[in-house]
């Protein structure tokens, strides 16, 4: 059984996936999700930042201001341990969900 909330968790799932390999700043996260979805998913500021702050407050990600030579000061977000754990769990759930749905409705891959 899947929790009915599962589908709704996908924004967090996407943010966590994007941050898995390296820390990124907010603008970058939005852009990356847009690019990876082939432009299908567009994150406006108004949607992105509330999610980021909530995830930060939950302790899944953490923001750190970084200043580099010649580059502007930015807040980079990275996964916490807790975040990595949540990501792994959510991924598993997601795969199980899609697999089950596919089985039910029998969509063949093109």
């Amino acid at each position, binding site marked *: 059984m899947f929790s009915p909330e599962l589908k709704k968790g996908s924004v967090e799932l996407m943010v966590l996936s994007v941050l898995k390999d390296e820390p990124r700043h907010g603008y970058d996260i939005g852009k990356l999700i847009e690019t990876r979805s*082939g432009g299908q998913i567009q994150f406006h500021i108004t949607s992105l930042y509330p999610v980021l702050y909530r995830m930060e407050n939950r302790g899944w990600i953490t923001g750190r201001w970084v200043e580099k030579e010649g580059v502007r000061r930015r807040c980079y977000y990275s996964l916490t341990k807790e975040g990595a754990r949540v990501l792994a769990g959510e991924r598993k759930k997601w795969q199980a969900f899609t697999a089950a749905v596919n089985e039910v409705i029998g969509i063949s891959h093109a």
Partner: protein
Amino acid sequence: MPDWRKYVHEHLTLASLEGLREERIAEELALQLEDIYTEALARGLSAEEAEEWTRSQIPDWEMFSRLLSRAERKNRRPVAEIMMESSEETLRTRGRVSRLLADLLHDIRHTFRSARIRPAFWIITVLILGLGIGATTTIFSVVDGVLLKELPYHEPGKIAFFEHPAFSPPRFVDWKEQSTSFERLAGVWTTEIVCIGGDRPAEFSTGMMTPDFFEIFGARAALGRLFLPEDFAGPPTRAVLGYGTWQRLFGSDPDIIGRSITLNGIDREIVGILDPSFTSPQGLTGGETDVWLAMDPRWGALWDPGVLILAVYGRIKPELTIPAAQIELNRIIDVLAVEKPAVHADPEDGPRYVALSSLQVAMTGDTRTSLLLLLGAVILLLGIAAANVANLFLARGLDRIGEVGVRAAMGASRGRIAAQLLTESATLALSGGAFGVILAFAGVRAFEILNPGNIPLIERIAIDWRVLLFAAAISLLTGLLFGLAPALRAARLDISGMMNDSLRTGSTKDRDRLRTLLVGAEIALALILLTGAGLLFNSFTRLQAVHPGFDPDGLVGVELNINGLAYPPERRLALVQRLDQRLESLPEIAGVATGITIPFQSWGGRRRGWLRWDWKAPEREDREIWTMVHPATADYFTLLGADLRGRTFQPGDETAYPVPVIVSETFAAEICPGRDALGQTIWGYDWRPGVPETELRIIGIVSGMHAWGLDQGSEMTVFPPWEQYGPENPLASLLIKVNGDPGAVIDTIRETIWSEDPDMPLDNIYFLEQRIAESLTVPRFFSTLFIAFAVTALLLAAGGVYAAMLYSVGRRRRELSIRNALGADRSQLIRMIQKRSLAIAATGVIAGATGAWFLTRFLESMVFGITTTDPVTFVLVALLMTVVALAASFLPAWKAATHDPMEALRRE
């Protein structure tokens, strides 16, 4: 660069946050806005545009601040509650109605935002819809002004018109005495009467009315009074002037009442001036009556069942309807037909019934059919436009499948997504509607300019609130139509579909089916329009090619006015003979002839003349043949260059007996069926008072004369010598053949006639050639409009086919490339793709032809010389549609077939 930090600080209001945290959030947002701004500049936007674009990223700061504040609350509720859409937040915080409103506003904003991102899609959609809605709105405003808006009378639905142009006074009086359905019943005889006194003699449109006419239409007097019962006694001597006549003719002289006006040589006392607000039914359809006279319907001079003069109007009692009045009228006529058969019955057909119709229906007559057909045509056009846009939406819907899917994944309900798509289509449709209304303003103007002159009530056409309401309604309806399919689809869409139907190769079969259906429907609708236009075009060219039966070159017609008291029959004969002589002596005139009418003196249904119906064939058997008796002089046929067998009149015929007559070939066939009528003797009744039977000898047969319109058949006509029968008839016209430029001769002709009779109004002088051309303006007008709509439909349908095929081959690019790589040659690939287009086109064509088969019958009254199911038109139009559809899909096919396979595969 604008100070984004300051901008954020000014707008962001985070309640109950520690200062440091708030500072960090503000800082981060400011940086993000800077990034967006810089990126926008890099994309090539101007500084202002970039700034505006950046500001638009956070359209609702209040909402955004609230979202951020919530996110800062350190609770651990399920992740799921975070919504992608700010409106989803509203869902929880506001009441139901304001929530819906917020959703709506958000969706509209979203639409405009996406319009900015994809301007091409938006512009094309608005253009296509604007075209469809503009055309529909234009024609609707014409239909509204002419057919729907109430006439300017009290309860106009209660005014009935007796459907026949004119009745005799005895018939009218019997109806009036016996009928109980009418509050009031009145007749009016509208005719041109000569008025003398001004610089030039003028003809006045005069309405001679029986009592109650003014009361039916609620007329009031501006000055003096309207008619009293005592005015309606004996010959018409009391006059009421129209307000305009009073201004024009008497300079609004306030002391006019009691003075007199001379009409047809008789002085009539002016008793009143009509209120300027009054418009008579004649005025609504073009020519307002100038002078009104009170006429006793029992006036002896007109008391004859053969005098067909009165147009009859009645106001039905409030509790009755027109059909109820019709039933009573039929019953009355049944009884009268027995009591007074000479007045109320035909010898063979029995009682002479009369149809009642509402005044508005009667006034609009034939135009009603034409206009409703045009409305039907533009609605088809709108349907094509809607199908076109629906296809665009579907194509884009596929692009947006991801977006919608994510939205669903975020928790937006299906209803919510469907509502958003519908809002989007409605917003687009209304934008298209706004553009359409602008087009309609131009369209209505064009319609007024191009009006061929036969559309009654045209001055009431306007883009008013009724028309705007209509435009808004059809816009929304169209929006619903083309938005519904994608919306329903979205409502069915589910997340797994999104994830698994890979965007590029996904084959949602029913989506394809829907697209095919839409394109097929476009083709079918366009074909219906094309067929209609084809039929009208075909019949117009046939009409134009009709030979009138005479050679109009250099011919001038002059209608003489010899119906007044000043012209007893002897004077008519003298005048015509003198004019004939004087005009013929002019060097620029080649010949003059006289007849009671001249071809094309009027055309269409109207004709003036002298009808007789009792004849005796050579065997002396009685025949009833409705025939126009048309006295003419010998040169009449020569000047016309008519196709005459036998001979024309010659000296001596003016007094000869048996009377020599020339007859039309239709009459000849009717009176002597199966054998040659030339040289036969026949008899006609009632030619002159006291003469029961006149012997006539047929000396010539004239063929193929279309004197009353190219679309009118060759009338049954008997032409006796004008000298014998012309002068007793108050109608006479001159037919003049001129040498050289006829324009220069007109003035000479006028001056010559005026030197004989300075009081003769000459309002109807015309070139026959020009009249024939004028008679074609109405069919030309309607067939041109139809063709314009049909061509637009054809282009839209071609665009639809093109777009659909482009999309379809785009999605099959991988397959096509592999085929290409495996060695299929181009022509094979093109054939393969074209085969599919052909299948769609053929289906659409078959459906359209079937529809046209049923619908073109409504064109019945507008086609000439062909049936409404003319096979040649049907086949040609179907071929044209198929060829256009194939041509439209060729380019996409060719492009796909010549695509570099490697590149396509790389893109995959």
